[in-house]
């Protein structure tokens, strides 16, 4: 029989009898051409092909694969094949032959895939996920990270003040921020925007330039910076469908990059253009990666998630000033604890004429502007 077949078909059941009701091609009705004892005519062949794949010609995409008639034996055969593939995947992670590192990597990836929302984790779980991420980086890149999962300190509420008469538009803050927070170098993502505005026009964003390149400060202009204002009533948090972003007790509005689904609702909800989206996988040259990281801060992000300024949570929760504050050569940026009555930020709020951007929206940003 197999001598005059038009094509080779794999006969897994090893049945050699021509009397079987089914054949290797998987059709239970009509002729598939493999059982005829004589050479087929062209017409017969076309009918056979039509009977076999006629439907599939009209079907598209998904249906082509799933909406096919098939008998029990074929179904079993296909299932077995997919099971074998699955088993192969499992065996690579469980096999005694594969090296321990590959197994550990698979184990870490598995646990990371199915971990919960960071917001709901207890301290042990937070530590476990951070340890996994550090180990994963170690296995993959051979370098050691220092990643923290430090929670908000009691009696701390972070606030920020920006002196618009001091800012000269040098943008040292922007470059310091990019380096500190491992932002994507390819898309040149920047959390901070410095707007060059005309004197006497007020905050007129329509006429402002946030990507100037000339000697600064330019005559007749002033400069003001925007970034995430860490609103006390953040609209971005309200709209997140998966609660991947929230306000911490110390006032920082943070994102769990592993819980974010990338819907960008928050980006649309933010009235201050404070949020950024990773359209591609963020890339930072290995030598430039800041290895002092925080889970909610500057750890490496992936494609398709939101990110934004976190007031450098990895620094601020360790008592340091955010990178932008430290980098500013003019002292235009003031950062501190709003709950400490002796802090400098409190003195600014109580003694300078401060205002906030779009105050009437009720978002209660914790970012104030003032003048000398």
């Amino acid at each position, binding site marked *: 029989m197999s001598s005059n077949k038009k094509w080779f078909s794999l006969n897994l059941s090893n049945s050699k009898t021509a009397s079987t009701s089914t054949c290797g091609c998987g059709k239970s009705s009509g002729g598939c051409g493999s059982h005829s004892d004589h050479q087929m005519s062209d017409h017969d062949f076309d009918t056979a092909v039509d009977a076999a794949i006629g439907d599939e010609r009209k079907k598209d995409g998904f249906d082509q694969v799933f909406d096919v008639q098939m008998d029990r034996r074929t179904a079993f055969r296909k299932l077995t094949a997919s099971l074998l593939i699955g088993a192969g995947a499992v065996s690579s992670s469980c096999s005694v032959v594969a090296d321990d590192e590959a197994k550990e990597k698979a184990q870490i990836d598995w646990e990371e895939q199915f971990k919960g929302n960071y917001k709901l984790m207890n301290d042990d779980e937070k530590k476990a996920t951070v340890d996994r991420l550090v180990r994963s980086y170690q296995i993959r890149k051979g370098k050691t990270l220092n990643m923290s999962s430090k929670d908000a300190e009691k009696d701390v509420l972070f606030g920020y003040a920006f002196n618009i008469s001091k800012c000269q538009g040098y943008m040292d803050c922007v470059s310091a921020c990019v380096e500190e927070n491992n932002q994507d170098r390819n898309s040149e993502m920047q959390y901070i925007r410095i707007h060059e505005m005309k004197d006497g026009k007020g905050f007129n964003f329509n006429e402002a330039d946030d990507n100037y390149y000339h000697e600064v400060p330019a005559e007749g202009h002033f400069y003001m910076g925007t970034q995430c204002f860490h609103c006390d009533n953040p609209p971005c948090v309200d709209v997140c469908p998966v609660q991947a972003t929230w306000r911490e007790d110390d006032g920082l509005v943070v994102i769990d990059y592993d819980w974010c689904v990338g819907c960008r609702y928050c980006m649309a909800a933010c009235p201050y253009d404070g949020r950024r989206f990773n359209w591609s996988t963020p890339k930072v040259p290995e030598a430039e990666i800041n290895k002092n990281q925080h889970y909610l801060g500057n750890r490496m992000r992936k494609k398709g998630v939101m990110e934004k300024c976190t007031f450098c949570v990895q620094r601020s929760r360790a008592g340091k000033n955010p990178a932008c504050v430290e980098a500013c050569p003019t002292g235009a940026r003031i*950062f501190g604890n709003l709950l400490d009555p002796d802090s400098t930020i409190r003195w600014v709020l109580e003694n300078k004429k401060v205002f906030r951007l779009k105050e009437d929206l009720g978002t209660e940003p914790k970012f104030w502007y003032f003048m000398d």
Partner: protein
Amino acid sequence: MMNRHILHTLGCIFLFLFALSSCKHGEEEYHSITDKIEAKSKNYHGVTISSEPLIEGIKTIKITEGEHTFLIPERKSQIKQYACTECHSKPLQEMQSNDGAKKAHWDIKLAHADLNTMNCISCHDGDNMDNLKSLTGNTINFNRSYKLCSQCHTNQFEDWKGGAHGKKVAGWAPPRASMTCVNCHNPHQPAFESRWPSVFNTQKVKERE
């Protein structure tokens, strides 16, 4: 009958308690952020985070001005050729008149007010170069040079004391350590120079085309 009455009352109490507790649900306690700051800072007992480890390697001195007490970096050890009297053994007049001899401080150009208002001896004491002097001739220590600046720049001085002018040495956490005037401003040319921005975003240009 009595039992039913008691059950009814109990039920009402539970319902009332439930309603009370659920009323607060999801609502903020405070009307505005200023209310929140005011209320929450009433019971402020300090934080466990400290800036001390961050300023460990920096020599500081503690100053008290008005109601503000804070640290500023020590200055004298940062001046390369202190003490000045190691060279300035004679009064300034005699050293300057000595033409043809070695010149010192040739790189210093004074761009601070105009020469009607200020010259070297407006701040330096020609008779005692190891110290500065005020407008009225009182001695001012190099470590407290801000006292010199504050003679004219009174507004800046007020802002600096409170923390609205200038930078912190390291972190936000107490103890407060602030830079002093000369840590950012060159006293001989105190203005900030104009220069080019440190970054330019080429992607932003493409996106907006």
